[in-house]
């Protein structure tokens, strides 16, 4: 996994190694808080904050963290930033904090974050780790936004609280319930897999099976 350009650490996380659609990590918040666009944005920002600062610290401190206690040390760093994000959100956006319920504290166990520390930040230089963290955050947020957009528009007939279809629209309530999250995520993963397969076939070269990347991260 040699990056040719620094930007590659960032860009590959948007599509090729998208944390949700390809690595299939962090599904709990992806399904749970995407019933409105506002919640999806808030979750994306909170995860970005925690992920970038955790990667920064883990990567800078990797020489001082003994291998035996590395997971505990990562969790400690992550939990610190999650708590800060939780308090900040509660102070600045009480309504969103209320709507997200327990899912802000649960960022501590978001596998995207621990996964990036273990797989990337703990063995790469600081600036690459921060780029990787930023890329994963943006990739995660994009998926959350798509999910939140689809679910809010279909399930409530609104986008960011503004009515889209007018007063006569009968909302598909199921879309903002948990099953709607699974429907949306499933369709999204389906579309992405079809596109990736087409591309791989079109590349004509005896294509590497698309699966190989997914497997390593699963």
């Amino acid at each position, binding site marked *: 996994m040699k990056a040719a350009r620094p930007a590659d650490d960032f860009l590959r996380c948007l599509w090729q190694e998208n944390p949700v659609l390809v690595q299939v990590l962090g599904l709990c918040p992806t399904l749970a808080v995407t019933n409105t666009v506002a919640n999806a944005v808030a979750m994306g920002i909170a995860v970005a904050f925690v992920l970038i600062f955790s990667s920064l610290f883990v990567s800078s401190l990797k020489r001082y963290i003994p291998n035996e206690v590395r997971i505990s040390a990562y969790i400690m760093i992550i939990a610190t930033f999650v708590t800060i994000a939780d*308090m900040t959100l509660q*102070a600045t956006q009480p309504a969103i904090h209320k709507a997200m319920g327990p899912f802000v504290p649960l960022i501590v166990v978001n596998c995207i974050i621990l996964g990036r520390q273990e797989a990337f930040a703990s063995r790469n230089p600081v600036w690459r780790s921060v780029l990787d963290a930023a890329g994963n955050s943006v990739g995660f947020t994009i998926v959350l936004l798509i999910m939140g957009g689809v679910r809010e528009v279909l399930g409530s007939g609104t986008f960011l609280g503004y009515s889209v279809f007018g007063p006569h629209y009968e909302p598909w309530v199921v879309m903002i319930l948990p099953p709607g999250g699974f429907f949306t995520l499933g369709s999204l993963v389906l579309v992405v897999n079809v596109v990736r397969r087409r591309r791989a076939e079109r590349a004509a070269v005896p294509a590497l099976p698309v699966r190989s990347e997914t497997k390593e991260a699963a």
Partner: protein
Amino acid sequence: MSAPPAAEHAPPRVPAARLLTTLGTGGALAGALLVFAYQATQPTILANKRKELAQAIAEVLRAPQRYDTLYVYRNVLQRELPPGVDPRGLERVYLGYGANGERIGFAVESNAAGFQDRIGLIFGYDPATGRLLGMKVLQSTETPGLGDKIYKDTAFVGQFSRVAVPLRGVKRGAGRGDSAEVDMITGATISSRAVIRAINDALARLRPLLDGYRAEASR
């Protein structure tokens, strides 16, 4: 989550003291950081909560001129607690006054188990008429689209601004025109019942105190 350790070249063992120092130092630093964050955010969080409560009280008492906080202490409503009594943890009700100093009624907080979690609400009660003045849900994780109608459905919420207590939930259209009837929400019976139960429970406990509260003449 972690990969299986590479057995072929195991790293040299690190002394336990080193592990303890690392985690201890890290924990102390993290703790210090959190104390700082807590102190920076706590005033705003508390101010937000106070503002939210004040708004809710104003809503369920129909915009009172001012309100007093009364504590339920030794089964009596008290405006001033005896010295040395910690007001935290005491149940409180709020007595609202109109523009001419007349009493509007009491705002009371209550909660009951809903469909997913406890539903917290505040309601206004007028002892003079024995009717409610309003109801506002403060805390709920009810199902979006169904249970959340207990605060999104204005027809349902509106009923609580005139109904007599104790409340009796009825199926929509099945009532007999009784003044204590509340039409429950179709598809959200458990949530509707929880709202009614929260109000009835609180009043069953507090109604003698509220009805009997005769402090110094209202100014």
